[in-house]
């Protein structure tokens, strides 16, 4: 199975008006460090100046005491060189010390913001995007940006300055030779530009592929049990090898680009040095240049080697940061579609009556050709429990997801006590809704944290009550009680235990609206009966919408609605519908058509049997 590419829709298209446009937009992350950055530059420049001064002192030594045979000046000049050397080291220390804190500070701030944005983006975004692509953005991409904004950009400035100052000094020392050195900047510029362009593309490709590989890894980690059950390790390894090999090929390509450019960038100053040496020696022979000057000239010129050599690395770094910024901005630029309206209402729990109305509700997943829900009209009266019934895959879960606005309707509207859900503060709405998904989502953290999710302030009594209601008191018997970390996705627990925890989470704090997706499907009969009894009490105080597959659970509901082809085709009491609606009967009849084995029945013990 090839890795799919649709998880990254905006990507893989040439981005932005200018290659570094998106990087530039991140500049405000440097603002808190503006003062430090200024310090950096000062210290950096001063340090470089001290570094440049040393060859000049050398020149003085050679031309002064050595040429004139005066040992006196030697010590002073030596002392000066020592002083400059110490100053340079101290300045580098200051620079680096400051640099490290601003670098990691900026990275952490940016990461926190991307995470905050991702949490705001709707589930449809998360369905569309591969998780590995998101992960690679907050890890390797942010590191690339950090490396450039903290070190790369700084070295670029510093090295450029060094280059200009040294060339100016060279011109001052010997105009003709100096200009010759200055002219060497032209090939450098051409090489860099070409390299930058090619590297930009390669870097983007690499980052996208890293995201693909991360996705593969994550997916494999997720499907590990399935993989083990079928022994498909070799197939998955081969699939991964494909991704890894693509990464390898891109890496080799990048390496080749880098090799060619680095070697060229090395050649230019070397050739220049050779020319300077020959021309300088000739000049010295003519007496136009002292030997000391020539030595100083050459040592100064050697100072250019590092800035030029590092140019390749800095450009590569910059391109990586630029494409990384493109990728990060693709996420940050995606507006969260499900947001608070300008004057959204806060609806306190006490003020809620609880009439939930679906008015001509339609919903279509982004990119899907046909709508899942066409025209749903449905009213759930305050305190009523309505069961939603329909064939596998008819859109029941989708309908439920509209209530806490995990998805927004694409047509019609849903109202709570007459308020369009979109006019309520998201936070306020979701506070009113308690939800249990068809698959219990648990995180690898303590049971207590899993239950209280968004309500860390929930009291022990509330938690105890919710656990009791969901018949999930087993949680207290775990090795560390409620502080026990449930393994990833709660896999150390049985399916029934997971579902009971998810139910406890939904009913915690008596929400005004309960939205439960097949909440008892994995419970054993004994537990189911107990949960049902407790749930009945809770349901009296809430308006509830349940998705139900089995007749046994329907007993919980006051009315049943049949969802078919995106519409509510029948609504009423279970017995009425059973009598009058054939489609309903087909779906929920306790008695199967003749000639088939009879279904299971209710059993009062906790023997792992589910009633049907």
């Amino acid at each position, binding site marked *: 199975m090839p890795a799919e590419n649709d998880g990254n829709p905006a990507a893989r298209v040439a981005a932005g008006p200018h290659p570094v446009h998106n990087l530039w937009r991140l500049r405000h992350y440097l603002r808190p460090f503006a003062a430090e950055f200024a310090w950096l530059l000062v210290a950096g420049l001063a340090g470089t100046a001290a570094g440049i001064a040393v060859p000049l002192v050398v020149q003085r030594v050679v031309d002064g005491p050595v040429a004139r045979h005066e040992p006196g000046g030697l010590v002073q000049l030596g002392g000066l060189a020592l002083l400059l050397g110490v100053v340079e080291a101290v300045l580098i220390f200051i620079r*680096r010390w400051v640099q490290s804190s601003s670098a990691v500070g900026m990275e952490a701030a940016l990461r926190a913001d991307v995470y905050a944005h991702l949490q705001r983006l709707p589930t449809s975004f998360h369905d569309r995007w591969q998780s590995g692509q998101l992960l690679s953005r907050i890890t390797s991409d942010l590191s690339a940006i950090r490396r450039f904004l903290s070190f790369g950009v700084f070295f670029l400035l510093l090295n450029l300055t060094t280059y200009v100052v040294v060339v100016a000094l060279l011109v001052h020392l010997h105009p003709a030779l100096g200009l010759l050195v200055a002219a060497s900047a032209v090939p450098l510029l051409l090489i860099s530009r070409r390299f930058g362009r090619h590297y930009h593309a390669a870097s983007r490709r690499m980052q996208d592929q890293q995201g693909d590989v991360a996705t593969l890894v994550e997916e494999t980690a997720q499907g590990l049990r399935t993989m083990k059950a079928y022994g498909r390790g070799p197939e998955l390894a081969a699939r991964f090898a494909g991704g890894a090999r693509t990464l390898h090929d891109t890496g080799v390509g990048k390496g080749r680009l880098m090799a060619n450019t680095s070697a060229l960038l090395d050649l230019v100053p070397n050739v220049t040095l050779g020319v300077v040496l020959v021309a300088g020696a000739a000049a010295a022979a003519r007496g136009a240049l002292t030997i000391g000057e020539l030595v100083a000239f050459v040592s100064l010129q050697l100072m250019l080697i590092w800035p030029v050599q590092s140019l390749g690395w800095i450009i590569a770094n910059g391109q990586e940061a630029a494409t990384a910024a493109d990728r990060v901005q693709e996420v940050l630029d995606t507006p969260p579609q499900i947001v608070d309206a300008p004057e959204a209402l806060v609806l306190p729990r006490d003020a809620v009556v609880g009439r939930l109305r679906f008015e001509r509700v339609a919903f279509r997943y982004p990119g899907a050709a046909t709508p899942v829900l066409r025209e749903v009209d449905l009213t759930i009266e305050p305190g009523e429990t309505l069961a939603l019934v329909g064939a596998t895959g008819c859109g029941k879960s989708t309908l439920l997801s509209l209530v806490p606005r995990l998805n927004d309707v694409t047509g019609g509207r849903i109202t709570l006590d007459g308020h369009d859900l979109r006019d309520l503060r998201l936070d306020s709405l979701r506070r009113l809704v308690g939800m249990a998904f068809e698959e219990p989502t648990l995180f690898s953290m303590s049971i207590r944290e899993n239950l209280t999710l968004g309500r860390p302030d929930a009291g022990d009594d509330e938690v105890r009550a919710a656990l009791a209601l969901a018949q999930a008191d087993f949680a207290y018997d775990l090795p560390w009680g409620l502080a026990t970390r449930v393994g990833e996705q709660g896999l*150390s627990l049985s399916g029934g235990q997971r579902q009971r925890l998810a139910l406890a989470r939904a009913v915690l704090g008596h929400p005004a609206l309960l939205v439960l997706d097949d909440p008892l499907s994995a419970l054993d009969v004994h537990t189911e009966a107990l949960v049902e009894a407790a749930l009945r009490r809770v349901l009296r105080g809430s308006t509830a919408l349940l998705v139900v597959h089995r007749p046994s659970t329907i007993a919980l509901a006051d009315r049943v609605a049949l969802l078919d082809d995106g519409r509510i085709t029948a609504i009423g009491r279970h017995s009425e519908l059973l009598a009058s609606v054939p489609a309903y009967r087909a779906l929920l009849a306790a008695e199967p058509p003749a000639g088939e084995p009879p279904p299971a029945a209710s059993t009062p013990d906790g023997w792992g049997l589910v009633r049907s």
Partner: protein
Amino acid sequence: MTVPEQADPPPGDEPELTRWRGTATDPEADRSRAEDSSPEAVQRLRRLSRTLLADLLRPHRRRLAAAVGLLLTQNAAAMAGPYLVMVGIDRCIAPLRAGDPVPLTAVAGAFASAAVTEYAARRGFLTLSARIGQAVLLDLRQRVFGHFLRLSVGFHERYTSGRMVSRLTSDLDSIAELVDGGIDSLVLAALSILSVAAILLWLDLPLAAVTLFAFPFLFWLSRWFARASAGAYRRTREAVALVIVHFVESMRGIRAVQAFRREPRNQRIFVALGDEYRRTSLHAFRLIATYSPAIKLIGNVTVAVVLCYGGWRVLGGRTEVGVLAAFLLYLRRFFEPMQELSQFYNSLQSATAALEKLAGVLDERPSVAEPARPVALPAGPGHGELTFRAVSFGYRAGTPILAGLELTVPAGQTVALIGPTGAGKSTIAKLVARFHDPDTGTVRLDGVDLRDVGDADLRRAVVLVTQENHLFSGTVAENIRFGRPGADDAAVQAAARAIGAHDFIAALPDGYATQVHRRGGRLSAGQRQLVAFARAFLADPAVLILDEATSSLDVPTERLVQRALSTILHDRTALVIAHRLSTVETADRVLVVDGGRIVEDGPPAVLAEADGRYAALHRQWRDSLV
């Protein structure tokens, strides 16, 4: 960009922000067994990572030798520069004054050829080293991934997928960073330091002796840095793993996060984890911020000393100006790479820490190991006999789930397992699927201990279908074909038809070619179960285990599946962890499990007549039908 409610946590909040993770039942939860903070473990891990590195590099010995050759050439050519400057100044100016351009021309020629050699060698070396580096990365990536696949389910349940992702992304990235940007600079720096030292000694022994005074300082400083930064980077690897684990889990559970308004709390936790990562990185960066200028300081002091002493020697006529000039130039070449490339030393330390983590994973032995000498299962139809002999098993020491289980399931029998939650039904299923090995006793298939069966052989014979029906990204057809990779489209469709999944699949936008989006997001839980059934049907194993596999289906669909199952199960051994008595009724045999023991065993009709738990259940069920 503003972040909701994520201002600095109040000081008293710190313990609360670490408590959320809770306490793992397994103290080894967060690491591979090789990782430990004791000094011996650190030593061991370092040894392991070195062995791993040597092992990774071994296949590239020739290329490495070529690369070193190129590097030496490049280095020699680079070193020729200052020497030629010296020659140019000391030996060419005087002849030139005398009208003899030959020495200068010779120097110029030498210079040109040195420059070209350096260019060619550098280009060659960098290309070659990128190839080697990428090949090593590819190899390492595949090894670690393959090893993760081999490790048992038990390991993964404690290690968590987020940490696996972190190892295979972030840790490998930091090694890749070294490969991309620094390895040549590092080697080159080391080489030029050595060669410069040699040249200095050759140029002027007393002056070189003065320079050598700097060595003990450099050595001591570097050793300090190596030790301190190794620890620091190890901590950053751990910190970033926690960031990734939290990120991966909260993105995966985003629906629950949003529905339960967990965003602010998640944000605080994420910021706290990010801050810990920031703190550990900062510590590592500050080490380099100290190390790098300290090297510079030693270099600068040495230059000043050499300047004075060398100047004095020139004055005394003991050495020439050109020598002094060359000496000073070489010194620059000596300290410059050391100082500027401490940046890359940083990458090296980070990569080393990452490699240690990976070595730790690779050192982990799968608790369910592939046999050294696999025994082939008997081929042909009519097989699938399962025997449990004195099987004891527990997930945690001291809490056994199964104690001395004895069971024989003849080939072709369908066995229904019933019993309360925690009785050990799923555990029996997992032992047959060899997700775990029993603590004592043996599980045999057709007389062969499962420990002696090769994985490929076992998986052909035994398939476990559970509630969680993972769909891999790809098409619906590909997901069904997961059961039998060689199957053609007709076989895939036949499997889907047999299980009653064909109609819904055909109604999907692209039919069988529909991409199941991220983790099957667009398919409902019931549809995913159907695909999983079709997959198992296609796999056609001798032993099929169904663990609560039909919970999310509506009644008609389930009926369809059950009808299909009765055909499928007809000629094969099946363990069904039953939800419904209707399934139990169709089984050849019912096992009532309680407290890890089989308390009742017999055909459903016989058990129903006896006076046991099953009979009681059965009576209640019969009564309810009336």
